């Protein structure tokens, strides 16, 4: 999984673009702390009709995709696009979900729970402040 990190409009915002999120590989998106504000994902169209799941796991160890469980998970249709905004409604000044106590972000995709591969390319943007 190729991962690039760029700085967004907000100097405190890191936009992480991850291409080819493949469940057989689980490269780290390394963030010592941060708050998840938004997730935008698109699945490549390859002529297939399969549905996958995007999984976001925050952990201090390397993910074993087939066995480790995600913290956040939702379905992503073949050829589809989905975006999710995250708001912390318990505070007025900040939003998102803080994962300050966890060390390393990792992202994976799977065709179904416990599966190890989707066989397609998913491109994702994760906005973390």
């Amino acid at each position: 999984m190729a991962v690039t990190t760029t700085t967004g409009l907000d100097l405190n915002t890191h936009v992480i673009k991850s291409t080819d999120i493949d469940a057989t590989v689980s490269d780290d998106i390394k963030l010592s702390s941060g708050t998840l504000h938004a997730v935008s994902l698109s699945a490549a169209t390859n002529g297939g009709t399969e549905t996958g799941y995007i999984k976001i796991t925050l952990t201090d160890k390397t993910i074993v995709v087939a066995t480790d469980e995600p913290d956040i998970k939702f379905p992503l249709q073949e050829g589809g696009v989905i975006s999710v905004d995250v708001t912390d409604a318990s505070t007025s000044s900040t939003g998102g979900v803080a994962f300050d106590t966890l060390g390393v972000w990792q992202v994976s995709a799977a065709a179904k729970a416990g599966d190890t591969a989707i066989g397609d390319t998913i491109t994702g943007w994760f906005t973390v402040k």
Partner: protein
Amino acid sequence: MATSKTTALSPLATFMWKDTAATTTLVTVTGATSGSLLQADIDNQVGSVAIFLKMVFPSGGTPSPGSTPADIQFYAPAGKRIIYSIPQGIPLTWINGSGQLYYWASTSNSEASSAAPTSGEEPTVRITMTS
């Protein structure tokens, strides 16, 4: 688990389910025969542990918390109210034409876990979707 259903946010024709004690008990929402999930609002203010909201769109049979992996899982840290908004929604019908929605909450991120919050510390869950 007490569940109430109201119609809100007209003219968006949005249904809201407010559950005051989302625990391991399976909730069946049969009114959503079509539509898309737009928002999941998890209020874990009274909880001392993190909560994972789990939803299942069954492809066959009734799911069983503790053994059926969730299709959607959202995380709310202890003491937080977290809102996940999906502007374009997650369409339900492509998962299951019957539109049945099942959800429960667990203190474990294991996709099939039904580990219950401590009694009296249940979160409030609001799920909004188009009709």
